[in-house]
């Protein structure tokens, strides 16, 4: 099974719809930037605002650095990710939890940057969900995530 990706302005974009009964989020659109340089996947702080996630009351997962700046990752409750696959079908992936990033810096500039950062799918997502990434910048139809059947 393959999830097609878009290549827009030099970024690989994963189109998704998410649901989370725990947060009363039903079928909401979201795009992720695929970043194989990131070892973590997360919703950006801005995305957390969009979904009205209670970021300040979420348990802390770990610290991380992004672009040289310090961030914290917070653990959400469960989310289901829905993707389009071949033949106009959809594939659903239920995760026990996901993460939200937030800057540890208190300056207005740092907080704005954190809120404006995209949501990221990093290498952990591929490892944990048994997926492979195929990228060909010269042929859009050749960009996809392959779900490896167990």
């Amino acid at each position, binding site marked *: 099974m393959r999830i097609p990706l878009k290549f827009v302005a030099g970024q690989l974009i994963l189109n998704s719809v998410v649901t989370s009964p725990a947060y009363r989020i039903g079928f909401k659109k979201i*795009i992720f930037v695929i970043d194989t340089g990131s070892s973590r996947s997360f919703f950006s702080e801005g995305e957390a605002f969009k979904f009205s996630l209670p970021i300040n009351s979420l348990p802390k997962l770990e610290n991380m650095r992004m672009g040289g700046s310090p961030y914290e990752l917070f653990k959400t409750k469960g989310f289901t990710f829905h993707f389009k696959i071949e033949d106009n*079908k959809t594939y659903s992936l239920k995760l026990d939890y996901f993460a939200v990033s937030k800057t540890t810096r208190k300056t207005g500039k740092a907080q704005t940057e954190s*809120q404006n950062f995209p949501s990221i799918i990093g290498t952990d997502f591929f490892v944990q969900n048994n997926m492979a990434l195929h990228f060909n910048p010269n042929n859009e139809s050749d960009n996809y995530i392959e779900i490896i059947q167990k």
Partner: protein
Amino acid sequence: METNPQVLELLNQNESDLDWVKNNLNYLQDKYNEEFIAIKEGKVIDHAKLITDLIKKVKKQEINITDTLVYFVSKIAIVL
């Protein structure tokens, strides 16, 4: 594996809007450089420098921000 028609519709909408962004990137970069835009059905619903402001502006139009495609437009290359 069951396909949810509602999910498929939303994914198709997002896909079309992403294609629209890609095909109109130069126009969007000239008009909304360094801004977030909310797109629905190939139209820019609203725009703002901060995502928090965009959420408020879209809400004023009685549109849920999560029913739109939110995209950050920049002439500057974005390196993560």
